[in-house]
């Protein structure tokens, strides 16, 4: 990834997730803030990493502030952030379906 800028996607409302991505050179690092971190922290982190990997993102610093988001929201916010970071506007949401194939 050539760009060095940071992007933030999402809100701090209930059931949402605010995710910030910043390219780095030291793999995928996720910092999670969530009031359900104890119960779902590992799951949320894994889901974010999995989503990033589907897009071939390997070097990224992630800060996620979760307000009780469902899996679909977590994925959607992560994907939107990746697209924004890459400067893409032609979102291909069907890519999510392809993961199940």
């Amino acid at each position, binding site marked *: 990834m050539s760009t060095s800028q940071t992007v933030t996607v999402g809100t*701090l*409302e209930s059931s949402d997730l*605010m995710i*910030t991505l910043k390219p780095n050179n030291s793999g995928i690092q996720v910092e999670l*803030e969530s009031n359900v971190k104890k119960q779902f922290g590992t799951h949320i982190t894994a889901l974010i990493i999995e989503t990033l990997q589907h897009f071939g993102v390997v070097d990224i610093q992630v800060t996620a502030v979760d*307000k009780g988001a469902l899996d679909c929201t977590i994925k959607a916010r992560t994907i939107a952030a990746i697209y924004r970071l890459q400067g893409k506007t032609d979102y291909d949401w069907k890519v999510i379906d392809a993961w199940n194939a």
Partner: protein
Amino acid sequence: MMVVKQLWFQFDPSVRQQWRDLLVAAQLVPDEQVDYTVGIYDGAQLIGTGSLYQNIIKEVAIDPTATQQNLLAPLIKALLDRLDETKYESAFVYTKPMTAPYFEAMGFKVIVTTDEVSLLEWGYPNFDDYQAYLRQYQRPSKQAAAIVMNANPFTLGHQYLIDQALKSSDVVYVFVVSEDRSQFKTATRLAMVRRAVAGNQRVVVLETAHYLVSNATFPTYFLKDQADLMLAKTQARLDATLFLTKIKPVLAIQQRLVGAEPDSPVTQVYNDQLAQVFASQLSLTVVPRLRQAGQPISATIVRQALSNGDWATVERQVPPINYQFLKGS
């Protein structure tokens, strides 16, 4: 129905009054030095507000009767969105320790807390990055000293402070204030210091980023004459605590040197707070002001001389290498 919108209190007396009343109700001092303000309305009533000054979030208040509605999240998000639009990638908030957890729940991280205030930040680069930067420049030392200077411009007085530090220490870290609020630009001030100490392997010149004497840690420092000294005290305490707990350990600093400041009340407050906060944990040396032919050496005098075109005074007060530089610019 709740609406979040930008407030133009500067142009509308009724909005200004509402805004001031809300801040006072939340026990804050209405401070109009802000770039951008948002408000949350419930009908015609203003029930929440928050402002930005550069990338510092300030003047955040929620109507005491509306604190159950989680208004802080949309308010802070609106401010973060504004920062995003204006190309800032990080934010600071300066708040009461009691309210820090609300900001932590929104992804802010505490940099430092005193009994009175907490400083938190959001985004990148952050304090971890700054500590990593410092680690890069760390030198093995038996006795390391630190000096923080604005060097606006670098004078023989600054030079003297460094020389004094070199007498008792094997490594001297010189932190040059990164905040761009002085007559000389940050890059120029940094260049003047680097030039003056060039060739001395025992002196390491560092940037302070946002973490020492900055708009975030110590904004009143830049106001000098008009500064509110009580406010300056609170901020100086925070700045000193940050240095003691988060910077000193990274570089194994054992001594900090400051110049005596008989004429500047704000710097005097700063020096006092450094002494109090460091207490037995870090030694503070106050170096008397260097005098020359009965006249103190001072950056203020140099700035005055420069504006009067009095090059003889400038030449007496700054190192030759910086004199050439000032003359050439």
